[in-house]
């Protein structure tokens, strides 16, 4: 069976809730190889990247900017969207793994990476499915600010799905972890009673989830900023990467101000 077909079947099962966040991953098993998830996610990322980069192709450029700059921006965006996710995982994976380990999870690195990549595949499938809406608004819109904010909203929309899926998967995984922990038989000594009085790490999944969200969200947003431009300002010539300046959140606030004032 081809990689993409396997990926499509897996995504279909996740979205139908047949192997979704409500059911923990089988322990010790790899339902879908990491490679399949990565290839499928990359294809979804490219498809949303094409929709996102369409604005650069269709918007009215400043007179001194050659037409092919739009095409180059579109091609670059289609590569950058999957790259954004891949690099964000690469940067955050070690800290995510360490955080979950510190919180008492016995998730192995392989299971952790599979869990994150599955959640990212869910994020990308939501993005790809909203791609037609982005493309439709691109056909109607000259406003660069509007398109930037629309894309931020679309990424946030996919982000909610990502977070929800991740939380459910994480809670499921950690529950399996806890259930498989061997019961300790301890003598009723003072130290054992003291140990029993120490609160159990019942909030570990929530703690890990919130920490992961913070790390992943901040790194992802800033990674997007580093890899910009994605939409491509019609007043600026094509550049693969813009110069390093400012921060993602500062720019979003500036864009909202530009659109309103």
């Amino acid at each position, binding site marked *: 069976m081809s990689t993409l077909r396997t990926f499509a079947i897996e995504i279909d099962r*996740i*979205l*139908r*809730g*047949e192997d*979704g*966040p*409500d059911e923990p991953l089988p322990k010790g098993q790899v339902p879908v190889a990491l490679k399949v998830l990565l290839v499928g996610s990359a294809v979804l990322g490219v498809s949303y990247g094409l929709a996102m980069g369409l604005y650069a192709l269709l918007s009215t450029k400043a007179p001194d900017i050659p037409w092919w700059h739009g095409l180059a921006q579109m091609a670059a965006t289609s590569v950058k969207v999957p790259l954004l996710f891949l690099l964000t995982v690469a940067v955050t994976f070690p800290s995510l793994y360490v955080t979950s380990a510190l919180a008492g999870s016995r998730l192995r690195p392989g299971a952790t990476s599979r869990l994150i990549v599955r959640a990212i595949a*869910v*994020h990308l*499938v*939501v993005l*790809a*499915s*909203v791609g*037609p*809406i982005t493309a*439709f*608004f691109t*056909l*109607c*819109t*000259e*406003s660069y600010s*509007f398109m930037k904010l629309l894309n931020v909203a679309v990424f946030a*929309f*996919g982000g*909610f*799905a*990502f977070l*929800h*899926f991740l939380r*459910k998967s994480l809670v499921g995984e950690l529950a399996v972890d806890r259930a498989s922990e061997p019961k300790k038989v301890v003598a009723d000594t003072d130290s054992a009673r003291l140990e029993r009085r120490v609160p159990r790490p019942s909030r570990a999944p929530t703690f890990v989830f919130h920490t992961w969200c913070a790390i992943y969200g901040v790194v992802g947003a800033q990674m997007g900023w580093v890899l910009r431009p994605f939409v491509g300002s019609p007043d600026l010539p094509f550049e693969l990467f813009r110069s390093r300046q400012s921060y993602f959140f500062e720019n979003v606030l500036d864009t909202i101000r530009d*659109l*309103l*004032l």
Partner: protein
Amino acid sequence: MTSFSEGLEGVGALLRGDTDVWRTGKFGRISRRILPLALAAGLLYGAAMGAYGLRGLQVLYSALKVPVLLGASTALCLPGLAAFLGAIGLGGHMGPILRGIVLSQATVMISLAALAPVIALVYVSTADYAVAKAFNGLMFALASAAGQWTLARHFRPLLAVEPRCRIALVLWLVLYVFVGVQLAWVLRPFIGHPGLPVRFLREDAWGNAYVQVGSVLREILD
């Protein structure tokens, strides 16, 4: 029973909220009958809407545009909605949710057709373009309310089983209104200003409704 009378029976069941009809396993056959009728209803209201200046071409264009507006907005929104709901663990309820949405859109078109005579009466009563626009807006609002009524009724048993399905209801409304407003802006004119030549789309059709609203608000505030 002919397919037409079966379709009428299905429409009646849809409007009455006769859920038994949908549970008897005849849904596929009935929906196949209802959807062509709903399409015809959309065409009928569109024709009535475009009859403002009694220009044949505008009648034809508007008749085509109303089903296109409702159908294309739905088609643009459903993939994103379905993917999001699947991702948040509501994939198991996707069938009833999508069926409810399609049936609510059918209700909107059928309600619009039922209101077509009212619009015809308004056109006969006044030549004021602003009044024509206002009444058509009102008809769409009433038909949309009927669609929401069907949707809410369809969701009631779903919500009893899974309260989180309310997310689908809210999200559908937000997405549909966001895309629908823009698509309606692109597809204008629906009524056809009597002082302007008949066109399928305005010359400046491919503008952004929200940017336009922002510009107007900015002008008012300045």
